[in-house]
């Protein structure tokens, strides 16, 4: 459920990057203070462990599909929230680069979605509360399953919000939510079971391996801090988001228009209003229809569509398409020519 660059608007992408970087810096400072330098290599190999662990696939009983570990909650159980968040962020960074999972702009969202919820919500509010201090195998299993469910569901819901706020897709909020949440519930249960099994395995052999915060101060205090930090971050992010949205209808789009003076740019309109009205419009057809009928939608939408892309007049768009195809051809030609000359120069030198 990686958020992808292609679905994002710059505003949403940047806001989540801001939130993510703020959290990383906060965690880094936090780690510097309660320092135990052994955690530096431990975080690193644990990150690598999450990658490596994902290569172990197993079939999910009764479904025939296969699953693998996710890692957010497991990392937090071993490393504690601060270190785990940084570790997850680095794992996702490497994933974004080497596997192009999502892309670099969406990375901010992805770190947020897969890091914040397991580290700062699922772990302290679910896992820790359930397992308590004298943890039995049963408690660990229940805590793991519920923790992973909460973390993943919140992450999935986040993906929905990010997508809808970006407004690149037409998928209505409710439909999207009703697809994402059940899918992730299934994934989460399996992940939760595996996480629980791992934790129990390790606990039985080496019980002292897990992070415990009672040595520094009590859990409740930490919890409060976490919640405060969370709300501050949410405020900052939300503030930035609405500031962007209200002052510049479409962030960069707007400034570009200013610079270029292109008159085909969409008229300024509050992104929230646009999204909200679209939401209303679309959700109105649910749940009776899965998807609304196009004929019905047309008259209502004609107006806004015209505004969204007013440049569409027959002439320009045909010119655009023809030009696009030509540009594509030229591009491929240039690429092939370079390849050709490179090869030749190589064969000449040897």
């Amino acid at each position, binding site marked *: 459920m990686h958020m992808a660059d292609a679905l994002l608007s710059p505003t949403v992408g940047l806001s989540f990057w801001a939130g993510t970087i703020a959290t990383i810096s906060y965690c880094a400072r936090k780690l510097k203070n309660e320092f135990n330098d052994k955690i530096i290599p431990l975080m690193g190999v644990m990150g690598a462990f999450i990658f490596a662990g994902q290569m172990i696939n197993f079939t999910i009983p009764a479904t025939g599909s296969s699953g693998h570990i996710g890692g957010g909650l497991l990392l937090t159980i071993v490393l504690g929230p601060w270190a785990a968040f940084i570790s997850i962020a680095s794992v996702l960074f490497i994933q974004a680069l080497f596997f192009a999972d999502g892309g670099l702009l969406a990375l901010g969202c992805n770190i947020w979605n897969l890091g914040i919820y397991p580290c700062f919500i699922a772990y302290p509010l679910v896992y820790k509360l359930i397992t308590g201090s004298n943890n039995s195998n049963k408690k660990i299993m229940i805590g793991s399953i519920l923790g992973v469910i909460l973390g993943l569901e919140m992450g999935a819901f986040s993906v929905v919000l990010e997508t809808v706020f970006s407004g690149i897709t037409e998928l209505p909020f409710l439909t999207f939510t009703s697809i994402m949440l059940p899918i992730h519930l299934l994934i989460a249960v399996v992940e939760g079971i595996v996480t629980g099994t791992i934790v129990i*395995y390790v606990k*039985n*052999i*080496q019980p002292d391996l897990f992070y415990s915060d009672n040595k520094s101060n009590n859990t409740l205090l930490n919890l409060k801090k976490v919640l405060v930090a969370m709300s501050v971050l949410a405020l900052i992010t939300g503030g930035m988001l609405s500031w962007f949205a209200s002052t510049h209808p479409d962030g960069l789009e707007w400034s570009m228009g200013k610079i270029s003076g292109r008159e085909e740019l969409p008229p300024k309109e509050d992104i929230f209003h646009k999204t909200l009205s679209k939401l209303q419009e679309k959700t109105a057809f649910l749940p009776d229809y899965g998807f609304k009928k196009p004929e019905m939608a047309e008259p209502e939408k004609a107006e806004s569509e015209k505004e969204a892309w007013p440049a569409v007049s027959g002439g320009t768009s045909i010119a655009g398409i023809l030009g696009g195809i030509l540009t594509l051809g030229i591009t491929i030609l240039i690429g092939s020519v370079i390849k050709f000359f490179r090869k030749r120069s190589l064969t000449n030198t040897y």
Partner: protein
Amino acid sequence: MSHHIIKAENIHFSYPDGTKAINGISFEIHHGESVGIIGPNGAGKSTLILQLNGFLLPTSGSFNIGGTPVTQKTKTEIRRHVGLVFQNPDDQLFMPTVFDDVAFGPLNLGLSPEAVEIKVEESLRIVGCLELKSRPSHHLSLGQKRAVSIATILAMEPDILVMDEPSSFLDNHSRREIINLLRKFHHTKIIVSHDLDLIMDVCERCIILNDGRVQADGTTKDMLLNKTLLEKNKLELPLSLQNK
């Protein structure tokens, strides 16, 4: 699979990243033979034996074991007959206790719980680790881990035993015990090792690999006494023959 002849025909293998590890290897190993495979680091030894079991499939060429070609389809069947002990015992033990680990294979073969228990105890006794039965694998010394990994394979009663560097990590005494163990195993065995003294003690035949090719194949004596041949392949006379 009555005679268990192992036949490699012009095997080539490249890793997905393009590394050519095996460049045309052919040989035939007969039932009951004990064959040592030696060569420098990176020669392709481990790559070669991983293909015996279908963990890797040749890019071209084919393996044939007891008349069955090793393919995606037959590999599960093949693995009942070919037991592989890997280089690093840590990779081989993954269950919580020694007992669970040794029982894993027989259980999957569908043996009854009683039969499994008997099998496990027997295998552990052979490698001299019966008293470790209920210990967690994690806390064993490396030598003990090595012995237990051999037991996990013995418990499956393979017809062909393949081992990658069985003596690494071991002290002299445990090494000697592994040598004795191998000598007592009378089915076909293939042993990869840098420890040429062990090869000399256990194998009658020896294949020298280098650069993914067979450089020489013959009786162990012929191979391990040929100083120029050995040196060409970054090897040395077995230490026990290097008199000072």
